[in-house]
């Protein structure tokens, strides 16, 4: 199966800001943050179409999100808005600073055709089962 | 609250001419009264003790953005002194940048009941007041920074003293400030381009005014307005060897200004030690104290406070941005700079005064020399410019140095002898008595601030009293450690008729009030100023004019001094 290894950056976006002010359980919020953006060349190598689900995996966890291609993202890098989806990929280690590293971690992205992205309610249920 | 009688103590109340007499102090409803009903009164036996009005500190950085930067940037400082919470008191940490509750408790433990924060940037006045509200027990107030304010510079440039007057009145009210503070006039504005001024006649960029013009204009209007305190001046060239000349020149510049009714003074020079340096550079540094003292002795329009140096690790913080940059470069210590748009700046740099550092030793001597060489203690207020010269916790030590030549000598013996020779301290035999201590820590600062009900124990004064466990009749200067101990932990501190500390322990935790000045100007001036503010504010500020003044919510307990100004400028 096709897979790319990229450096993931997470950050704020306007859509995420607008969405969270409507509410964390709103469609707008969920849509705004459950996405990964890749450089078109990396995107193409996955052989998927715009908005299709991919599995993103780091050393600390994995998550299913939809995938888009973006000219703004350099090759070998990826972008995700802050939120519960991205946070499944980060380590809680802060190296004695209090701050976990939320930018610049290595992740593997692979196509996950047919798999469904979890909703916020499903993410919560998953946590409840812990 | 029960009435209070303090009996058998030796009372020092210089404003009322009481010098160690044994008589009773009666307090009812928070005020000193002639006599209360003995049957219902709580009686404090102050036998063999000193009774004084509650201490008044007119210059101590206790609240606002600067001290808070100091707190935030110096976690290592707080480890030295901690106060766990009790059922009565909140937790706190010291040392040079103490937390707010800690500040209130420690001042009260030393018998202080009134303290003024001397540098409030108008734009962050709300911050100052929020912190003042979290300083328990003591009464307090804050001085508004004006010496580098855009509107001040503009009106000084246009020589429109009416507008200046209106603006000063407006700004004091908008910030709920108590006095006009000037820090390195012009120099802080120039610092916003990375520069400074070197003397009274340097030009301020873009405004074409000089520090001299700023000082004299503000002083003149200050007196015209009849503000309770004179201008509170941090001179140019602070910390620069040879700066005594600038200091005297600054004081001279306001010599001819007519003081407000009932007083002779028109300027208070703050932490004078830092501005009394003689010599061409740090290596050739010597004391300029005698020159300053000579001038102060010969003139009645100036008062000073000490800015006494303590040998310890402390944190320097001033509104003088360029000086703090200089200090950062001298020491290599960490440096926070914080410029405030249109009006002020600030810098914070940790600093350790060391006995083995020749310059520090000379600075230490200068503070004491000033106090001892100025003949009239009414011209002196005791400060360490907390925390610049050292934390206020060391006031008892300063008292012991002033009261005991032996205390001074014991410290001098630990210093480099050649340094002491660059000062006149070793040749000074004067020793303060309890009355003079009461003057420089209570009566004088309170008088200089125009606080009618503070600093004395006459009928009608606030019921703020401190009682120290030292017997003045058999105390000798050689026993300086006793006096240091006594003033470190007051036997009793009484605030507004309530016992707030007993044997150095906190006994009650009331909230003190905040003083501010409500100076009225004519409606015409007021509306002219407002119109000018409206036309300029949006272009140059990032906060709207309506959101700028401090709202009443920030002064839950306050006392405004209302001033009607009769005199007009011609």
């Amino acid at each position, binding site marked *: 199966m096709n897979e790319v290894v990229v450096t993931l950056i997470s950050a704020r976006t306007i859509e995420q800001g607008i969405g969270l002010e409507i509410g964390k359980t709103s469609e707008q919020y969920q849509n705004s943050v459950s996405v990964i953006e890749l450089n078109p060349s990396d995107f193409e190598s996955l052989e998927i179409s715009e908005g299709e689900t991919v599995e993103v995996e780091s050393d600390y966890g994995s998550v299913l999100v939809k995938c888009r291609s973006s000219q703004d993202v350099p090759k070998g890098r990826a972008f995700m808005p802050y939120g519960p989806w991205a946070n499944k990929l980060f380590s809680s280690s802060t*190296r*004695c600073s209090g701050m976990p590293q939320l930018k610049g971690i290595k992740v593997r992205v692979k196509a996950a055709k047919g798999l469904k992205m979890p909703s916020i309610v499903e993410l919560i249920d998953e946590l409840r089962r812990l | 609250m029960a009435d209070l009688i303090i009996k058998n103590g030796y009372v020092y109340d210089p404003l009322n001419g009481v010098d160690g007499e044994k008589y009773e102090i009666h307090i009812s409803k928070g005020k000193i009264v002639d006599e209360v009903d003995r049957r219902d009164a709580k009686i404090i036996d102050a036998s063999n003790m000193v009774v004084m009005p509650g201490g008044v500190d007119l210059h101590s950085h206790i609240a606002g953005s600067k001290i808070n930067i100091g707190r935030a940037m110096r*976690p*290592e400082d707080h480890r030295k002194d901690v106060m766990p919470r009790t059922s009565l008191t909140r937790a706190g940490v010291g040392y040079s940048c103490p937390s707010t509750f800690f500040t209130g408790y420690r001042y009260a433990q030393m018998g202080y009941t009134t303290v003024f924060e001397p540098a409030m940037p108008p734009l962050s006045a709300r911050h100052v007041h929020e912190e003042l509200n979290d300083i328990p027990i003591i009464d307090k107030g804050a001085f508004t920074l004006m010496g580098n304010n855009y509107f001040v510079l503009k009106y000084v440039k246009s020589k429109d003293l009416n507008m200046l007057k209106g603006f000063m009145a407006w700004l004091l009210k908008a910030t709920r400030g108590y006095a006009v503070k000037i820090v390195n006039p012009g120099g802080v504005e120039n610092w916003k381009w990375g520069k400074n001024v070197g003397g009274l006649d340097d030009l301020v960029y873009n405004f074409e005014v000089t520090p001299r013009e700023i000082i004299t204009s503000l002083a003149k209007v200050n007196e015209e307005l009849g503000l309770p305190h004179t201008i509170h001046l941090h001179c140019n060239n602070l910390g620069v060897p040879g700066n005594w000349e600038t200091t005297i020149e600054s004081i001279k510049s306001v010599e001819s200004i007519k003081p407000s009714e009932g007083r002779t003074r028109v300027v208070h020079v703050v932490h004078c030690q830092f501005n009394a340096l003689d010599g061409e550079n740090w290596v050739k540094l010597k004391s300029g104290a005698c020159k300053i003292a000579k001038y102060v002795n010969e003139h009645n329009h100036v008062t000073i406070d000490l800015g006494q140096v303590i040998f310890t690790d402390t944190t320097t913080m001033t509104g003088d941005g360029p000086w703090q940059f200089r200090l950062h470069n001298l020491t290599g210590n*960490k440096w926070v700079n914080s410029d405030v748009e249109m009006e002020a700046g600030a810098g914070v740099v940790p600093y350790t005064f060391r006995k083995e550092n020749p310059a520090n030793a000379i600075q230490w001597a200068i503070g004491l020399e000033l106090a001892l060489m100025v003949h009239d203690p009414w011209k002196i207020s005791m400060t360490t410019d907390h925390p610049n010269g050292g934390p206020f916790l060391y006031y008892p030590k300063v008292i012991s140095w002033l009261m005991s030549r032996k205390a001074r000598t014991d410290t001098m013996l630990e210093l480099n002898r050649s340094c002491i020779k660059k000062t006149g301290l070793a040749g000074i035999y004067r020793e303060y008595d309890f009355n003079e201590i009461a003057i420089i820590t209570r009566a004088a600062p309170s008088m200089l601030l125009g606080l009618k009900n503070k600093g004395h124990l006459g009928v009608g004064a606030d019921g703020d009293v401190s009682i120290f466990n030292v017997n003045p009749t058999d105390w000798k200067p050689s026993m300086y450690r006793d006096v240091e101990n006594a003033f470190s932990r007051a036997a009793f501190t009484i605030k507004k008729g309530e016992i707030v500390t007993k044997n150095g322990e906190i006994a009650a935790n009331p909230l003190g009030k905040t003083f501010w000045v409500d100076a009225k100007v004519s409606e015409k001036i007021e509306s002219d100023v407002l119109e000018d503010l409206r036309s300029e504010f949006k272009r140059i500020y990032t906060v709207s004019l309506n959101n700028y003044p401090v709202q009443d919510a920030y002064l839950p307990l306050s006392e405004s001094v209302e001033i009607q100004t009769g005199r007009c400028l011609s």
Partner: protein
Amino acid sequence: MEVFLKPKVKPLIPVEAEVLTPDRFAGMKLSEIEGLPVYVGNRVEKLSDYFELEGSISEKPADQQITILGDASRIKYIGYGMTAGRILVEGGAGMHLGSHMSGGEIVVKGNASDWAGAEMSGGLISILGNTGDLLGSAYRGSREGMTGGCIIVKGNAGIESGIFMRRGTIVVEGEIGSFAGAHMNGGAIFIFGKASRGVGAEMRGNGSMIVCFKGVDSLLPTFIYNTIYKPNFMRIYLKFLFNTLKIDKAGEYFETPFKRYVGDAAVGGDGEIFIAET
């Protein structure tokens, strides 16, 4: 004389036990030591709630050994501020091991957590396993990190080891995390494993030296290459490590040439980084 502490439980909330020093124990009765306070969350509990104690107590700290028979990885401040004597931890040790110590010796057979030897001024800490971050460092805000003494780590060390170091010696036989010796202003760090990114960052000088025997992940561009040579003092240092501190690996480098870099130029520093040329 030796006193043995056998851990009773593995605490969920870390136990702050700065009482675990020969200084505190010396001259006390065993029953008194059992009653010494430890801080667990917001409660004050007794040392005996967490350890079974037996053994003998000396009059002077210098004659006292404290041996913890097991894992103490949730016990903080072991050896805090100690001036003399010896502590042996058979298992791991929690945060702040030997912080502010000025004398004596601590040996940890397992791993030690973060801030081991922080702001220490004297004595010897040997950690046979790995250690966490900020080894021999300054606490946040302080610019006086380690001011004396010696720390030896047989395993790996974490990030910002020796930050704001002023004097003393740190030896790491394994790998070391990024920004080792940042803000260093005196002292020496020997790294026998691979050094990571940022080694010596903002190093000021004052004789400070970092020696990397297995190369550096990426040396900062602000360390300026100077020369390659076999410094005499390095030989003396290595002999000291080999003979006195029993660092066997030091023996492999007696004849090795070193590349010398000076920096950190970003702060106008004249500290030295030596990288073994093997």
